[in-house]
């Protein structure tokens, strides 16, 4: 067991967990941020995607000991009130069916748009390739990423 000071969604959390514990379980069971989902545990499905210093990572496969002072953003920290352009687009396009994978999808999409505000279809397919949706909402996900890009460009960026 060891104590870690984690910077999550602009807050500091002290957690006492074993060093190999994946960030996913620290977020969900220790801190209580359950928006980040468990799907496969081996970085294949993308349901657990969070941002580590703005990069999308699979939190099921990142041990807490590797986080250090890097900033973690989860779906709960994306915006105060669900007004991030990606969240707005996801609602407008009515993307979710069961919705379980969507937190991970949204985190992958926001990370993409931050680096590439005007992605092509191929860019989107590449950036979203690590996220599985068993309900098959991919068409609307792609449409929502494009809509979010447009919204963000109107507002002057995804921040």
């Amino acid at each position, binding site marked *: 067991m060891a104590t870690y000071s984690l910077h999550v969604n602009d807050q500091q959390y002290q957690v006492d967990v074993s060093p190999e514990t994946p960030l996913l379980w620290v977020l969900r069971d220790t801190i209580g941020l359950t928006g980040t989902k468990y*799907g*496969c545990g*081996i970085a294949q*499905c993308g349901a657990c995607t969070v941002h580590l210093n703005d990069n999308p990572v699979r939190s099921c496969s990142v041990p807490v000991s590797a986080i250090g002072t890097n900033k973690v953003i*989860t779906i709960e920290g994306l915006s105060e009130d669900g007004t991030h352009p990606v969240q707005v687009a996801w*609602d407008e396009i009515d*993307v979710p069916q069961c919705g379980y994978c969507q937190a991970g999808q949204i985190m992958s999409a926001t990370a993409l748009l931050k680096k590439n505000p005007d992605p092509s279809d191929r860019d989107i397919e590449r950036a979203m390739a690590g996220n599985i949706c068993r309900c*098959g909402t991919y*068409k609307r996900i*792609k449409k929502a990423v494009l809509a979010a890009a447009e919204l963000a460009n109107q507002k002057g960026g995804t921040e």
Partner: protein
Amino acid sequence: MSAINKLNRRSFIKVSSATGGGLLFGFNWFISSQATAGTSASAAAFEPNAFIKISPEGIVTLMAPNPEIGQGVKTAFPLIVAEELDVDWEKVQVEQAPLAPEKFDRQVAGGSGSVRSSWDTLRQAGGAARSLLVAAAANEWKANPDECATELGFVIHKPSGKKLSYGELADKAARLPAPSDVKVKNLDEFNLLGKRIKNVDNKAIVTGKAKYGIDTKREGMLYAIVERPPAFGKKLKSFDDTETKKTHGVKDVISFDNKIAILADSTWAAKKGREALKAEWEDDGELESTAGHLEKFKAILAAEPEKNIRKDGDVKSAFSKPLKIIEGTFEAPFLPHSTMEPMNFFADVKENSVELYGPTQTPDRARKAVSELLNIPEENISVMTTRMGGGFGRRLKTDFVTEAVQISQKVKAPVQVIWTREDDMQGGIYRPAGMYHYKAGIDAQNRLVAWHLKATAVNSGNGTRENNFPAGAVPNFQVDFTNLESQITTGAWRAPNHNFIAFTEESFLDDIAHAMQKDPVAFRLELLEQAKASPAGEVAYDIDRYKNVIETAAEKAGWGKPMPEGVFQGFGSHFSFGSYVAQVADIQMRGSNFRVLKVTCVVDCGIVVNLSGAETQVEGGIVDGLGHALYGELTFENGATAQKNYDKYRLIRMKDTPEMEVHFIKSTENPQGLGEPGLPPIAAAVGNAIFAATGKRVRKLPFSRAELG
């Protein structure tokens, strides 16, 4: 005693439907709504039935009683009530209702049956409430109710223009007796139904606030991970939990029913504890394999079938005549459900009561199973259904509920059992593997005169759908089935049986059409005409609706028109869960690989309740069906699955998603199923396109195994 209590005792009211007219309906929800009037001096809320609550402040709360697995029922049910109630949808609050069979019918997510079985009830619930609000307003104004209209939560007196809000009328409406005559709207009066309405939980989902079963946290709750047999046909011999108990966070280890549960203060600690467990397993029966199943299937199909399911005319005598014979054998692999939310359940067992909380498609069945297991009366067992990360049939079972209950009972604590993805893929309940042999005969006049299906599948009562088209169109028609008993557990998987048999029927029809040198679409239409002109046995589908989706899909997809270089089309259609679906797949070959470019889909599901929800169900069905047809295959070696997680078991991703165009036939028929019907036809549409492109017939799924070079 308030007036509403008197209303509650009325178990029947006379209902005249604008479309049906003068019918009597049993309203069990009228008996059971709870009175809130008279409990204090304050104004009463208006709760005319179990679906609706209108507070004196004007807050309209609509209950969603059915399990939400992603099929959109939490939006669709309240939407239908809101339509008839005439409220502002943007201001309505929707609440998931707990299990309450005394108030609600059929709280089940299965068989694409929610909307089609509750359509009338929901409309009348809204209509009855609306007429009470109108009556209350008319009393206020001393006016004739016929002079009143409703709009967005207000009753309006048309001659004077006076209006009162539903909130203002709530207390007075609550004191009126139940209406003797409930009118529902004419279809052309709908304001909400048929439009694009967003999922009511979107905002919660996109902010991470939506709670799924796996997100349940309770004071004193222990997380449980269960070590189950590593293969079908193995049983527990012994185990050593010394190291497990030393694992930080592990609180308890218990053994029951051939399993060992590790309980801990976090999911990860429970998982680490299980890794430290030393369990020994011994053989307990045959260790089955996919190769072994194939051998057994072949032997079964070569022998006399166990049972005849349907027989029209005389296939045997037809085949004794000189006919052109077409044959084909199709193979279905096992499929796991792959719900994105891994299996989990929360149970808190007390001395004579139980709380069940979590993702179940059948809360009622879960409660009955727990009641039987613990010998605790059902009324002492509460069940709350959480939003589910997919169901696809897996959560129709109760094994994961009773397991959580057994553990909670033994450790005397609230428990959440979590299955890892590996636990789920090995732990059972799969779409059954099977083999389907078809034989057809074409006579000298180039007519299909005989059709014989001999089928077998693992642990299936009847792995066929004997009344599917072309049953009814072929004078000599026979379907036989033989079950293959196995230790491997099987169950419903999105569009059970339809999900594979549609591939076989529609591929085989394509084979026959080519053998006859007929266009596959024209051939289907000709068969439907045949079923109409001289039906053979029962015709279990509406011929005109079937024809209409086929013709419309062909027209929308440009069937028979010149295609761009290298693009080929295939056709598939299917009737299931009350809905008619036809699809055209456009594929492009690149060497020995193909890509599905576009799917044109036409659906007749009766009235469309929510266009956005309906469209996404159909598109999702296409993607799901395509994905599993392309890649889905769970195989067994020595009783264990060869695939345990998504590194070896491939699911479809965004780049394989085709362009999709979904058209709904405009209809005044009652709504039919939609969670499943979009899925069955796609595999055949793609397979038939592959045949058009390469001349190769793929009869064994998944397509990724086929050699097309």
